[in-house]
């Protein structure tokens, strides 16, 4: 049986007030690359991925699975404004960069990756679906490793945006978080067990061992009690942060992925 490991985990989170130029400059100083014609959404993704250890040595056939709840919305709003309020054609590079999957292209280009490349969305848990797909592609030998990420950005004006996404009482965070999966045990941080599917949350909870910290990703539950809220798969992010900070050794993430479908992941720290 193939064992699949979490090699590393990283994230970059900020709020809407931090200037894009500043994040980009910090990123370029960090990795020594120059990025042109990329928007904030792509910069947020790159900033998260380059917080991962040894990322430059990633194998070129590593697959890229990205989940997003809202996609690249800021640039889409700007283009709607240009086309409909100002009767202008969008600028060519703005139009190209607004395609949500362009984030995959820029990450793949920056890391020189040629493997499978998917961008997916789901109302409740895009990260879990991306992680599930990546896990089974490795298990079934479609790839030997995968980089799985979750990216979302805040659109302005903030009060309107909060109204649209139905969150009024929390400080919003935007950015990205990442997990690297492979079959390599050496230097791995955790073991990921095979994801399980259940028809309801009670069944999913019933099958989780008692000593695991449980995190639930469901847009309608929004179980976190913290003041700040990340826009996409928030509980998955918190679970991985808990593991990273060594606050827990065993975690379970239960994610709603359909009308009557839940995914359950069990992850055991190796440190």
């Amino acid at each position: 049986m193939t064992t699949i490991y979490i090699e590393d985990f990283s994230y970059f989170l900020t709020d809407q007030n931090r200037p894009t130029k500043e994040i980009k400059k910090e990123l370029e100083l960090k990795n020594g690359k120059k990025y042109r014609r990329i928007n904030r959404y792509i910069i947020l993704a790159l900033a998260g991925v380059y917080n991962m250890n040894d990322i430059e040595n990633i194998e070129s056939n590593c697959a890229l699975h990205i989940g997003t709840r809202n996609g690249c919305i800021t640039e889409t709003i700007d283009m709607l404004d240009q086309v409909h309020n100002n009767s202008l054609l969008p600028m060519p590079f703005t139009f190209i960069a607004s395609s949500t999957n362009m984030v995959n292209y820029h990450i793949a280009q920056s890391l020189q990756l040629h493997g499978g490349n998917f961008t997916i969305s789901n109302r409740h848990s895009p990260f879990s679906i991306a992680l599930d797909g990546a896990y089974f592609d490795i298990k079934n030998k479609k790839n030997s490793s995968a980089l799985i990420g979750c990216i979302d950005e805040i659109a302005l004006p903030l009060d309107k945006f909060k109204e649209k996404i139905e969150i009024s009482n929390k400080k919003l965070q935007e950015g990205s978080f990442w997990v690297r999966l492979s079959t390599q045990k050496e230097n791995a941080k955790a073991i990921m067990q095979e994801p399980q599917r259940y028809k309801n949350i009670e069944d999913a909870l019933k099958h989780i061992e008692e000593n695991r910290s449980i995190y639930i990703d469901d847009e309608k539950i929004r179980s976190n009690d913290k003041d700040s809220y990340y826009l996409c798969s928030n509980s998955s992010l918190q679970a991985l942060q808990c593991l990273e900070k060594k606050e827990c050794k065993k975690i379970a993430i239960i994610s709603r992925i359909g009308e009557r479908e839940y995914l359950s992941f069990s992850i055991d720290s190796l440190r």
Partner: protein
Amino acid sequence: MRVGIKEAVAVCSLGDNRKSIIQNIKKEPDITPIVFPFGRETRKRNYKRILQNKIDNPEDFDAILQKITKQLIKKAKLTQDMLDECALIIGSTSMNIPCSEEIYKKSNENMLPFIGYGKIGETLAKNLNIGGEVTLFLTACTSSASALLYAQRGLQSKRFKRAIVVGFEFYNLLTMSGFETLGLLSDDICRPFDKERKGIVLGEGCAAMLIEEIGANDGFFFEICGGDNTCDISSPTSHQIEGTLIAKTIENALKDASIYKDEITFIKAHATGSYNNDLAEGNGLKLLFNNIPPILALKPYVGHTLGGCGTLELAILYFTLQEGFIPKTFGFKTKDEEIDITPNLEEIKIQSQGVCLVNHFGFGGNGTVLVIRYGGIW
């Protein structure tokens, strides 16, 4: 496990049912250009519209997706128990931009009316009582082709028992304006691999397919044997002109499907009619095949339906192969010597099983190739 397409429904500029699509693909399609407002002026561009289904508000948008998916559920005789164990996989480029755009035009709010793609899938699943996973693919022109590959892999790894895969693309001025600003749109018909090509013709369409395990006694079968997806990092808008990565993606797909290249009966090319795509795809095919099998281009009939073309063009193939023919490629006039590819210009009758290669290459370097084995009783 053998996984294949058990049923398909589609709506596009050729018609809104199997019969009209088969009938109209044998006729010359309408080539009259339409006047579009681009910036402060108007220009004529060819566009393949679904005349009966104007998308002016969210209700229209949800209604057409629901209508198509409902038709599929009815045709495939899916019971509630079956729907409980059914995943819903959706692929599109513009997603709900068409209705967002309509509301945006009328409101004074500087905000996108609909935020979060997931709601499209959730609404559809809720209204049709589909119980399983809901996943939306956003990989530009490969979106619904990648959704099909994901569905095939999901069934093979027993993550779900069946999947409804829906691909769609509806008219919106934002997409039209974006392609116009890139100088890619044609006022003529779409002419892939043709020296007289004038660019891409966009179109709208929607197709839904049921993906399930297929058996030995299924009569006509349409098996997704395998496929591959890669990322070409040479340019955000086109694949490497030499075709190396396109050839590699096809090679990987054939390996995944355990099919030899000389088993290929014909190729459904991506064939957008843009110079870069034609050249890269042509070069990729020439790198791989000594004798290139017949090449079919479907975009001259239905336009480029972007993220929806994976399911729409496969649904058209599903209908025509079931009828016993491979359509001819419409509108080809003059061979482009630089590319040196002539698509099939005559309808091909089929009487035995075969293997078809289905190519899709999009913005962001995304490439998805599917290998389809078809056969049965004609």
